[in-house]
């Protein structure tokens, strides 16, 4: 795979949010406004690039059996760094993101890339992969927050949009609107790319990065049930 391909695949083809459906919690929670979505996307990208590089550099040192706790420590370290930097230089955004900033630690995209890419590839490739995936995540958050802020509060990044401001649909900025817009976006992507890209049809274990180290009994149980049906 060439360097450009490694970078590009995260943007659309394997977009972590809209195609792989990972990192759903921050996607739903921080997309009420474009500004907070952008902040979340960039913060997660910074953590992703740094943790991918660190894990790739340490890939020969970290023992295989305890790799997940090691990854979690590395990721939590970078999350702490990013949140301290934000607290110092961007206090408004820090307040806006609140607990979700600390929760980047448990964002499945980051652990997933460590497990699927960084531990098998060189530092440079891992950095590119992290950058691509991070921008894909940011792009998806931007798309979703644009829809929610435009139609929900009639503004875009704080600027009032003339016509839309008179016909707001406030529920879009609330919890139910989040699920609704997310569903519509994934359906749109599925319709536009039908058959062209591999897409997951349901939430199941193979797409979940945690599947590799979770109690596989759940997945095995599900598989055997599906086989029984077939």
């Amino acid at each position: 795979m060439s360097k450009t391909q490694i970078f590009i695949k995260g943007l659309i083809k394997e977009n972590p949010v809209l195609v792989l459906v990972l990192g759903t919690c921050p996607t739903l929670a921080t997309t009420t406004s474009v500004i907070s979505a952008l902040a979340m996307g960039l913060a997660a990208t910074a953590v992703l690039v740094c943790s991918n590089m660190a894990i790739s550099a340490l890939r020969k040192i970290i023992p295989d059996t305890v790799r997940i706790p090691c990854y979690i420590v590395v990721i939590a370290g970078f999350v702490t760094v990013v949140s301290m930097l934000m607290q110092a230089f961007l206090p408004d955004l820090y307040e806006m993101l609140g607990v979700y900033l600390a929760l980047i630690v448990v964002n499945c995209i980051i652990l997933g890339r460590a497990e699927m890419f960084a531990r098998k590839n060189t530092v440079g490739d891992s950095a590119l992969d992290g950058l691509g995936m991070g921008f894909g995540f940011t792009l998806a958050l931007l798309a979703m927050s644009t829809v929610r802020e435009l139609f929900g509060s009639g503004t875009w990044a704080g600027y009032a949009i003339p016509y839309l401001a008179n016909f707001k649909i406030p529920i879009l900025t609330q919890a139910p609107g989040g699920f609704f817009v997310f569903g519509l976006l994934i359906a749109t992507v599925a319709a536009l790319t039908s058959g062209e890209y591999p897409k997951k049809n349901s939430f199941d274990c193979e797409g979940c990065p945690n599947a590799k180290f979770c109690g596989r009994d759940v997945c095995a149980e599900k598989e055997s049930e599906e086989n029984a049906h077939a």
Partner: protein
Amino acid sequence: MLKTLLSILLASVIVNNYVLSKFLGICPFLGVSKKIDQATGMGLAVIFVMLLATAATWPLQTYLLAPNGLEYLQTIVFILVIAALVQFVEIALKKYAPALHRSLGVYLPLITTNCAVLGVTLNNISDGYGFIESMVSSLGCGLGFLLAMVLFAGVRSRVEKAIPPVAFRGIPITLISASIVSLSFYGFAGVVDNLFGGAL
């Protein structure tokens, strides 16, 4: 005192439901809600881990991190404590309560990276709750998670039988139905405030 605790409990079960209004723990909510029995097992395991995690992290924060000015280590310490705790509980359950392990054990490793558990421990600290209040709030959040999971499993069993447009099959229709379930919880906003005269 009792009134405050009750209002914290009710608020975290229905008004600030972790899944449906705070968007924490969405992955298991969407992933393990296909069958009611799996949803119940996951919900019970989450309640259990949330209570344990709060019981472990609250004293750590109050007696170790805060007095020594180490609050910035909160995220790292909490996630490690939760991960270790989950492993430990799994081993202990396997050895001493195999029956319980068979029903809950499979869900335990999934919970380590569940943002609802880390979220509840962090929120308890940032809300300035005392130990008992924290435990009650964790119990409430866990119960709210269980409630959302079980309700949604019921909804999903009906959705599975429907035939949505091609592009909506799978994830999108699941999210749209989650939106409607979330809308029904939206109706609870204000209930607790009115019940307790704004005691929150």
